[in-house]
């Protein structure tokens, strides 16, 4: 039973990461700006993170989709989500108005357009998925299962 639920959770989280990653790769300049407006990283690191993060998300999506290294992929997903949540909270606390750029877009927005609550709650939901997979990494239809057999 847990293995079947696990499969659904794993595929679900894979879709989230794939969607997040794909939405950010078409316009590298916009992806860099989405990172820059958090005003956390120095300018020298803005582009590497803006360019690299979408591919980290895509790699996690791929691993989760095929079920290879489910536990490590889920653990890294959780770490990444915690970093995202902390970054959004930090921006919020500093009174900066941005779109989180979680699924493409990003950049500055009018103060009335911010959606920090929704963005953080959404990421917490994804964090639950990752947490489930860390606890129950054995899922049906996975490469992990196939390798262990």
């Amino acid at each position, binding site marked *: 039973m847990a293995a079947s639920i696990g499969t659904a959770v794993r595929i679900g989280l894979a879709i989230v990461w794939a969607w997040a990653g794909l939405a950010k790769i078409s316009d590298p*300049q916009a992806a860099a700006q989405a990172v820059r407006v958090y005003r956390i990283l120095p300018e020298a690191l803005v*582009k590497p993170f803006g360019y690299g993060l979408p591919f980290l998300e895509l790699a996690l999506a791929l691993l989760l989709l095929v079920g*290879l290294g489910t536990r490590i992929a889920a653990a890294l997903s959780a770490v990444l989500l915690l970093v995202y949540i902390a970054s959004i909270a930090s921006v919020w606390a500093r009174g900066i108005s941005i779109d989180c750029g979680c699924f493409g877009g*990003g950049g500055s927005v009018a103060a009335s357009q911010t959606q920090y609550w929704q963005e953080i709650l959404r990421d917490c939901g994804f964090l639950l998925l990752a947490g489930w997979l860390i606890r129950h990494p054995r899922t049906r239809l996975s490469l*992990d299962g196939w390798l262990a057999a």
Partner: protein
Amino acid sequence: MSTKNDVGKRSARERMQEERAREEVAARKKRKLAVILTALVVIAAAVVIGIVVQNGRTSSYNAGTDAPGGTVGNTRLLVPVGGTAAPSTVTIYEDPRCPACEQFETGMRATINQLLAQGKIQIQYHIASFIDRHDGGKGSKNAANALACAQNVGRFHDYHDVLYANQPQETVDAWADRSILISLAKQVPGLDSPGFEACVNNNSYGSWVTAVQSDFDKSGYNSTPTVLLNGTPAYPTYNSQDISPANFTAWVDNANKGKPLASMPSASAEALASPTAHNNPPASASGGHS
């Protein structure tokens, strides 16, 4: 004798089983480690390849060859309008698709053109193009490129005013269709030409447009219009006074106190002072895009 032998046999068997179990545990551990390593390698490879690919995709900009003629600044990202000797500099960041910019232009155009004609101000335009990111589409970038094409033949300011007078709604990406930008160019005398049309259609100043936007991204200003009077934000307020034609003129006059005004070629000044049309003096720095 016999019991001793039995014990020996059993313990041998047990030892073998234990040995096998140990080997299995070791093999499973090894496999787990291999899976984790594979996962980490996949992630590292994806990130490295991603950074390299995205770096390669961002167009490189060379100020010497990629900027339209007559642009200024150390990387030639600014479009100057008006006499360079004018005592006050107005810096304007605008996105062609930005509705607030259109409102600013509609409300302030006559005033600004008058101040230009009187030699009181010079303008430095930053043509941003980030609305394409927010709303999707290509209209801002296409229009910014077309403005660069107009700048290259000394018709930036007229064309700029025509575009704002004919701006589509923000969410309607009409300027994704470059032929609309070309047909609007026909409203500016002397602008439309086969060369101009090719420049618009081939996105000839695409890397300049990207570089200007990148510069805006790093500027710390995060919305358009951003208007600076001698470096101090003047939109929507300046020293906590709201912007208006009368206030703006007063701010400029106040800033210019005791400073000589720039003289403009009289034809240009006359054209600027007229409410409908004006001419940007043809770009003195020739060459530009090769």
